[in-house]
């Protein structure tokens, strides 16, 4: 811990206050979502609350109410896509990030194409991809065009995360390993990988969550079967009930658990590394 034991400067209290305000600001709409998901059965999407109940949660699991649409299937489809996306993003972005450690012809191209991919409106990329597939006579389905379309969104972010993570990376570790006779595979496995592991996990999580949220590029390329964001967007057009808020609360809980688990895993890895180091130096 830094400065452990030293007294706190006045700025600390001021900044803590700012931070608290900020968190409240971030959570503003979410608080509405959480509260309204407990809306009474006759209630609507805004205040005032008409009683408190778990009614909308039961409707959600029941699967038959108005405003539920095909959420169940859409959810599992999304989960499946997200999992694959997370892994794919992680592998491809990590490899690409690693490639940037040297100057090579074409590196600018890679970088700028990532930027371009991020700023092109999703709908355009989606339509462009659909049209391309059509011209080449391929049918669109979730596991190639749908996935590909989402990757155009998640990979640039993954790459940028890699930039950040590798930017922190102290090359002297690697040099020391080389001096000790490690070849490139050993260098990667034993030096580089453990250090960038948090970054990789970050990319995986980012891949997962960005896939879950992404609607514009996916909808045109996923073939039949909606993903969650698509289903929700479609539902918003017809009938909405606080079921949506119930979904919001539940997905938050779900993601919360997911990240706690991730953090625990990362902490474990860090601790094991510490143990290994102290054992070795003992």
């Amino acid at each position, binding site marked *: 811990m830094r400065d452990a034991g030293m007294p706190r400067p006045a700025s600390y209290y001021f900044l803590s206050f700012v931070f608290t305000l900020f968190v409240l600001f971030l959570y503003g709409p979410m608080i509405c979502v959480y509260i309204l998901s407990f809306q009474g059965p006759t209630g609507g999407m805004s205040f005032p609350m008409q009683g408190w109940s778990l009614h909308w949660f039961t409707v959600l699991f029941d699967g*038959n109410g108005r405003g539920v649409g095909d959420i169940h299937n859409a959810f599992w489809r999304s989960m499946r896509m997200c999992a694959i996306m997370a892994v794919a993003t992680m592998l491809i972005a990590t490899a690409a990030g690693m490639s940037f450690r040297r100057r090579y012809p074409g590196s600018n191209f890679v970088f700028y194409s990532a930027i371009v991919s991020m700023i092109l409106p999703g709908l355009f990329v989606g339509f462009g991809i659909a049209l391309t597939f059509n011209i080449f006579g391929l049918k669109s389905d979730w596991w190639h065009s749908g996935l590909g379309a989402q990757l155009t969104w998640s990979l640039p972010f993954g790459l940028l995360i890699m930039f950040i993570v590798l930017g922190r990376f102290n090359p002297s570790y690697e040099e020391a390993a080389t001096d000790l006779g490690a070849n490139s595979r050993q260098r990667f496995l034993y030096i580089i990988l453990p250090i960038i592991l948090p970054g990789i996990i970050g990319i995986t999580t980012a891949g997962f969550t960005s896939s879950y949220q992404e609607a514009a590029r996916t*909808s045109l390329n996923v073939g039949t079967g909606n993903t969650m964001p698509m289903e929700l967007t479609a539902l918003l057009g017809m009938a909405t009930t606080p079921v949506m808020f119930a979904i919001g609360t539940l997905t938050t809980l779900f993601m919360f658990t997911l990240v706690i688990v991730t953090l625990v895993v990362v902490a474990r890895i860090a601790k094991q590394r510490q143990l290994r180091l102290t054992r070795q130096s003992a």
Partner: protein
Amino acid sequence: MSKIKDKKSSSGISRRDLLKGAAAAVGTAAGSGAITGFPTIWAQNIQNVTLNHVGSVYTTNPLVAEEANKQLGFTINMQTLDTTSQMNRLLAQPETIDIADMGNPSLKYFVGKDTLMPIPINEYKWWDKTLPLWVDGTYANGEQASRQGFAPILSAYYADETGLEWSETPTDWLVSIPLVTNADTFGIRPDLINRPIESWAELFNPEFSGRVALQDGVNVGVPDAAMALEAMGDVQYVNKGNMTIEEIDKTIDKLIEYKRAGQFRSFWTTFDQSVQLIASGEVVLQSMFSPAVTEVRTRGIPCIFQGLKEGYRGWAISAMPLRHVTQDPLKRDCVMEYLNWMNSGWYGAYISRTGYYTSVPDNAKPLMTENEWGYWYEGKASTDDIIDPYGKVMEKAGVVRDGGGIWDRMGNIAIWNTLMDEDRYLVRRWQDFIAA
């Protein structure tokens, strides 16, 4: 014998051979919704046929899909998409869709494109029972229906089997199977307005400054605005639903004036937004859909779908098969089967209970209770609770539907949802409007 077994139907399915040309028998099972007579295709391999139906959020959902799959021998794969995504799929990858349903103005995008399959009139069983709005463009009393905007009759028939041109007079080739229609108007909060509203012109009444809303978009929002502008006397139109360039300019310029004066609160895009706006009292008068009005009411908030003296805005959704389906004769038969099923009764009753009119009411009537039929179609007061397809109570006894019976509303259409010839110019000027 075919491997296809009767699927859980209570009153027994009798199967007729479609090839023999026998008509299906419509059973009566009051309230239970079981229809006899389907499937009428007798083939062992239709079990393996899967049809992809992509449609709007009003016409596709798991409840309907479940029933369709129960009653037909093949699989229906329903997907709900917003209009833009659906159109993009239809244009870029038509072979991924077998049947599409959409509002009839969108049909204009397909003229001359050979994407859709013309339907031979003799293969569709219910054309004679279809509402005359489609059959010959008249109201029930024989009067010609309004042609302002995109009236259904304009895209009901193809000139011939090539499907390249439309015909305004009946032919043997249908463009689509009509599914749903309704008449829209303003939804209002009578408790916040406290006086009768009678005219579209009230949209621009300064009394409601900052408290009105329209649907965003040129196919619905602009017709509503045009109705209001005409009622105010601000602009004169030849055909509000198909404006000339000068009319468009005048309309947009007037709208920009009102926008800058702060007349509008918002332009909603989704159903939910329209409900939110008026339920929360942000808005007291806005363009709305009928189920949205009902939704507001089920929350205990007074809301009326107010009939206005200038008339209603009408719209229609229909289903059309895609051309590529003809390459597989078995699939094509299944598609026709499905289309016939859609208007054979169960689906029509379902649609009616959500507040829209089915195109073949006679088939839906036996499956609805007298109370329901009276309330939804005849403009009579309800004698009991009116329940929606999911079991929620929409109205109690003793309530009359806003606007009255089907022909009080559908017989008083001033303008239809539209896609104008000058759509390109209109969209360009609409951009100016939003940026103002």
